[in-house]
């Protein structure tokens, strides 16, 4: 029976030959993950149910270092309890120092491999799909159940295929690929479905750029997003782990619910306007929109390739008067690399703040909240009302080139128009 990546990975995890779209199956997980905000609630439920031992400490990973150094006593106390739990249970994959934020850190450590079935108590679990894993976001109680039994029920989703073709022009990045997709599918166009990203344009991208695309599958309501692994994926994974993996591809005659073709060849840099990530227009339509804050980083755009793009724009330039620019490397490894290659100096010289590794101001709780009068361009994945502070703060989403050029200009600009 022809099958999609989603069907193949779920069938294997359910111990079946084949699973049909719409079927409900019980699947074993290869990895269960949770973070600073979702693990405390998961443990509360785990204990409330009378569970005492996790199913397999080696298949659990708790990454609780999103907001380091700690913002307040409550968070510090909550993470302290997680450390004690992980010690008692023998969970070695516990990170809550300065290592960085989970969606960038887990792939970096080789914990994410092609063909895995992952359940993660965080909506951006889908980021791991860039390496060909099927990584499903769940709530805390679902994860508590997975911690205890190593399995959960799932509906086998239909798959929407998103095919990127063409060669992107200057300053058009993978963020623009996914913003263009959001514009087409809307914030619920993939609800309960899987998205398979493919097409020859992906071959031009390194895994670090592909994460940006997979990361925002959830913004269309998808169960997850996934990409077929290629040589670049395998090189990335092999450089990080000895563990075996399983490259899973959709059969040529697999059934997709629909196919969306996106030509990236004649695309210009894009921006999502407040307050939905699907509110997408070309950046040049917004020129002269004055901003007060620019944020570069997060699980969407906080990797080395992103910092290099930022440096390309900021080198020898200054952040405009009245604009605060903060740059947040996603992990400590990225931070160190940016330090060694001189990028941090470029940022500081330009007048930016470099945040410690983590999520930065993305969720409005740490490192840069917005007031009612602020207008912010961020490389994040969400611009919901109130997401970064006051409900009236205006949040625009973009790729790194647009964000950095905007910080210099003091107003939204299309980098194609101002950079050579």
């Amino acid at each position: 029976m022809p099958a999609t990546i989603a069907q193949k990975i779920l069938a294997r995890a359910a111990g079946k030959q084949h699973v049909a779209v719409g079927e409900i199956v019980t699947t074993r997980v290869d990895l269960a993950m949770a973070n600073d905000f979702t693990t405390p609630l998961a443990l509360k439920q785990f204990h409330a149910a009378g569970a005492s031992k996790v199913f397999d400490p080696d298949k659990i990973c708790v990454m609780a270092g999103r907001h380091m150094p700690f913002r307040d006593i409550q968070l510090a106390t909550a993470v302290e309890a997680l450390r004690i739990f992980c010690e008692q249970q023998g969970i070695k994959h516990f990170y809550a120092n300065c290592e960085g934020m989970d969606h960038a850190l887990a792939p970096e450590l080789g914990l994410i491999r092609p063909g895995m079935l992952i359940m993660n108590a965080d909506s951006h679990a889908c980021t791991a799909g860039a390496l060909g894993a099927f990584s499903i976001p769940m709530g805390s109680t679902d994860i508590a159940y997975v911690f205890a039994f190593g399995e959960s029920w799932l509906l086998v989703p239909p798959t929407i295929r998103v095919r990127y073709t063409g060669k992107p022009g200057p300053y058009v990045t993978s963020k623009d690929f996914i913003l263009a997709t959001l514009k087409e599918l809307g914030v619920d166009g993939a609800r309960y479905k899987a998205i398979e990203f493919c097409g020859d344009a992906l071959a031009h991208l390194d895994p670090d750029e592909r994460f940006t695309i997979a990361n925002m599958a959830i913004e269309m309501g998808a169960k997850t997003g996934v990409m077929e692994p290629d040589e670049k994926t395998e090189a990335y994974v092999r450089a990080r782990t000895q563990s075996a993996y399983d490259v899973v591809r959709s059969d040529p005659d697999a059934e997709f619910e629909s196919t969306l073709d996106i030509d990236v060849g004649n695309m210009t840099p894009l921006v999502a306007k407040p307050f939905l990530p699907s509110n997408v227009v070309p950046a040049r339509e917004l020129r002269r929109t004055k901003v007060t804050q620019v944020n570069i980083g997060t699980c969407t755009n906080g990797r080395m390739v992103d910092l290099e793009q930022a440096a390309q724009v900021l080198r020898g330039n200054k952040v405009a008067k009245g604009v605060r620019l903060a740059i947040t490397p996603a992990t400590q490894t990225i931070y160190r690399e940016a330090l060694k290659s001189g990028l941090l100096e470029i940022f500081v010289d330009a007048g930016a703040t470099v945040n410690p590794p983590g999520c930065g101001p993305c969720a409005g709780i740490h490192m840069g909240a917005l007031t009612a009068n602020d207008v912010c361009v961020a490389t994040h994945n969400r611009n919901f009302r109130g997401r970064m502070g006051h409900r009236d703060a205006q949040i625009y989403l973009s790729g790194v080139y647009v964000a950095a050029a905007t910080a210099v200009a003091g107003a939204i600009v299309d980098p194609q128009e101002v950079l050579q």
Partner: protein
Amino acid sequence: MIFTGRIHKFGDHVDTDVIIPATLLSNTDPQVLGRGCFSEVFPGFADRVKPGDLIFAGENFGCGSSREHAPIAIKGAGISCVVAASFSRIFYRSAINIGLPIAICPAAIAHAEAGAEASADLGAGKITVAGKSYSIPPFPPELIAILDSGGLVPFMEQRLKRERQSGVRA
């Protein structure tokens, strides 16, 4: 179980940042989260809710982050049931897991007015607004088993007990 109360009406794509801001997430107490429910974007919401009231909302309710604090906050605020044209996937699962009753009923949403009386009878599968009833689709059997247990925690408790009795688990 029949839930009866006044309608609090919302539009499409109500996201979890709006339901409960991330600043309140280091808490897991339903009472505290209930007071924070919609506090940033619709200040005073929790004060306006009378126990038993219902939320009626458009498409994709609960989209965005996976924070289970969102359904907990709604329940903690005293809302008895959320009726929506559709739900985001994570919110749908989590609501059932933590025991917040939900129903998908686009027809009822189209006729619901803020402040009006409504009732939801999930056992009989119907939503009543202004004297008119609308039917709702049944839940899949996997979810009925969880609902019947009173949520995923008691469901888990029962499975742990069975496994301990049969010696599968220490």
